[in-house]
């Protein structure tokens, strides 16, 4: 690429790169090849290797990373900041370097920028953007066939953060892997954001010895390692339930509590919202004024949307790994029929062993259908757990086996994309046969209901008396 001669200086190179990138994005959009931000970003980056540094210069940026909740939380942060003017945001979830470049090119005059960043691509993006705030949500096993082991990811995040001592890290105090990665940073704002998934931190991420936990009966409210001393830090932010439906109260130890009526379901999204308000606060936005904007986020890139299909109303939830499934099953808590769709393509992770780590007991008593390219693996797993189910590789055939009315659908990455596409398409005749049948009828009586809400959070009485907890 010799369009820009090296002697003409970086400014011209930068301008040409951005122009070419925008053009590429526009062409891609017109050809119907998607939003174009990735290809545009790739072109600009190829022409000007420091294009992201230049695009981010002078903006106040918040980066959001972690294994689960990046897209949702970045939407919440962007909503929280929108009162202050336009916000550059990779809203579609293009979360590697090219996607960040594309988002900043698309909103050139914004002073504010919110970028979700893949946890494995954090280094180059953080080095270029130099954000005011980095949000670190959680770290857990994800696509073990593609990504190396999660402790290695935590060490990489830690070494990246060491290069950016001025960045404020808003981090989840309940996840030992997060604490091991962020704990050495000079400016950390700890949030009690919960950790429903403990299988990756039964041993200490720092020294490998056993982690001790104290629970409130359902969830850990404190944790520590007796061997090396790693422990749950004191959170500055936490949330508690409120009386109104969908409502909860976000607390900070020095600021007045803020009531939020969330547009998103489940405990995990209350935690995501709390983290978003903490991040907004860290860049000078008053949480009380941000709360109404955050509450208006009701669907995030298709997640939590309700779609009518034949005589069913399907709410679909995307999950990508076992920790996400655990959270989704909480989001979906109820007696509605449920459709589970699992693929195992490269983007999903080729190995579905993790199905055996899912808390499938919450499905007991519900009418269940399994689908996707790995429907049989999931079906075998449910049979061994004694949970009757319908199965068919085609999600629409499996869905047709469920009763009319509201249905919860949980799907992993490519399965979620394909399911939404199928649901949006014309209704097809049901294909009988081909599935594995259903030897025992699903129970017709609804179960007594989901596990009740956790008891309200009490003050932590773990090692240090300071820590409010996720209810």
């Amino acid at each position, binding site marked *: 690429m010799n369009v820009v001669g090296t002697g003409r200086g970086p400014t011209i190179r930068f301008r040409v790169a951005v122009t070419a990138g925008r053009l590429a994005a526009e062409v891609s959009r017109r050809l119907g090849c998607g939003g174009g931000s990735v290809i545009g970003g790739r072109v600009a980056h190829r022409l000007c290797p420091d294009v992201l540094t230049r695009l981010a210069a002078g903006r106040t940026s918040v980066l959001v990373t972690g294994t689960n909740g990046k897209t949702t939380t970045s939407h919440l942060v962007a909503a929280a900041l929108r009162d202050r003017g336009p916000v550059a945001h990779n809203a579609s979830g293009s979360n590697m370097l090219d996607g960040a470049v594309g988002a900043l090119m698309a909103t050139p005059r914004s002073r504010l920028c919110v970028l979700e960043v893949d946890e494995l691509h954090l280094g180059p993006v953080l080095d270029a953007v130099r954000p005011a705030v980095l949000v670190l949500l959680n770290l857990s096993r994800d696509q073990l066939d593609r990504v190396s082991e999660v402790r290695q990811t935590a060490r990489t995040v830690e070494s990246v953060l060491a290069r950016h001592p001025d960045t404020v890290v808003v981090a989840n105090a309940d996840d030992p892997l997060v604490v091991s990665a962020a704990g050495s940073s000079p400016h950390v704002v700890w949030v009690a954001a919960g950790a429903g998934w403990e299988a990756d931190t039964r041993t200490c991420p720092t020294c490998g010895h056993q982690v001790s936990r104290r629970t409130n009966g359902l969830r850990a409210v404190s944790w520590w390692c007796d061997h090396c001393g790693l422990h749950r830090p004191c959170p500055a932010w936490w949330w508690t339930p409120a009386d109104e439906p969908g409502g909860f109260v976000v607390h900070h130890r020095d600021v007045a509590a803020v009531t939020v009526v969330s547009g998103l379901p489940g405990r995990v999204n209350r935690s995501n919202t709390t983290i978003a308000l903490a991040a907004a606060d860290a860049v000078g936005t008053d949480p009380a004024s941000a709360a109404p904007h955050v509450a208006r986020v009701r669907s995030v890139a298709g997640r939590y949307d309700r779609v009518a299909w034949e005589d069913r109303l399907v709410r679909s939830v995307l999950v990508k790994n076992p920790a996400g499934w655990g959270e989704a099953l909480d989001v979906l808590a109820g007696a509605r029929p449920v459709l589970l769709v699992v693929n195992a393509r490269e983007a999903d992770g080729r190995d579905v062993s993790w199905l055996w780590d899912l808390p499938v007991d919450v499905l007991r008593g519900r009418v269940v259908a399994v689908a996707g390219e790995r429907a049989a693996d999931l079906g075998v797993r449910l049979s061994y757990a*004694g949970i009757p189910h319908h199965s068919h590789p085609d999600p629409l055939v499996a869905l047709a086996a469920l009763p009319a009315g509201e249905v919860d659908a949980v799907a992993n990455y490519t399965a979620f994309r394909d399911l939404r596409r199928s649901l949006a398409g014309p209704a097809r005749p049901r294909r009988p046969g081909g599935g594995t049948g259903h030897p025992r009828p699903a129970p017709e009586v609804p179960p007594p209901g989901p596990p009740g809400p956790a008891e309200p959070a009490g003050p932590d009485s773990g090692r240090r008396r300071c820590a409010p907890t996720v209810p």
Partner: protein
Amino acid sequence: MRAHGSVAIAVLLPDVLGTYSDAGNAVVLAQRLRWRGVAAEIVDVTAGTVPPTGCDLYVIGGGEDTAEYVAADWLARHDGLRTALAERAVSLAVCAGLQIFGRVMTDRAGVEHAGLGLLDLVSSPGARRTVGESVSVSTLPGVGRVTGFHNHGGVTLLGPDALPFAHTERGPGNHPGTRVEGAVSRPTADAATGPGIVATYLHGPVLARNPALADHLLARALGAPLPPLDPDRLPDMAALRATYLG
């Protein structure tokens, strides 16, 4: 079998070696017994406890490198357990479990970590990580073709006192230079009955994908073959086997 007639299945260190969901192997074993009217209990043996030495079956799974050495140290401190594994019980060791049951594990820094020495095999870092689906044919009677997922950084070579668990048909095995999958502790001619160790790199979990292997282990633990299982118990199994073996 225990005095009260229940078969005890121990999961060794699920808190340390839980990365690859291999604890599902114990669920498969227990349920296949219960479906045949045999009582079964699963005992999670975590690092904070003293391990029981009288269980009928022991399963141990895969984990990350640090966890693997912590697990090996812990197991080496419990002589009674080692004796049970060597002489009395039927055991399934997967991935890190296979390496720990061997003689030596060499890490990336070249440091040698002692294994339990229950299997004559040695493991060392591979040139690259081994990842992918594998199909092989078991040397154990009645087990047939086995499917599973490899995901490990180490490679393993068997010594003369260990025999292959299977020979690979496609996909990876213990070592890029061989077609050997896993290891068994006894000559296969005797392996249809009695105690012993079956070790493999296969995840899935391996017993979820290979019911004949589960029944082989159960028959050895009970000292008698089990009656066949009603196929309606696992309506998806044919499709699962076709997915990976077709």
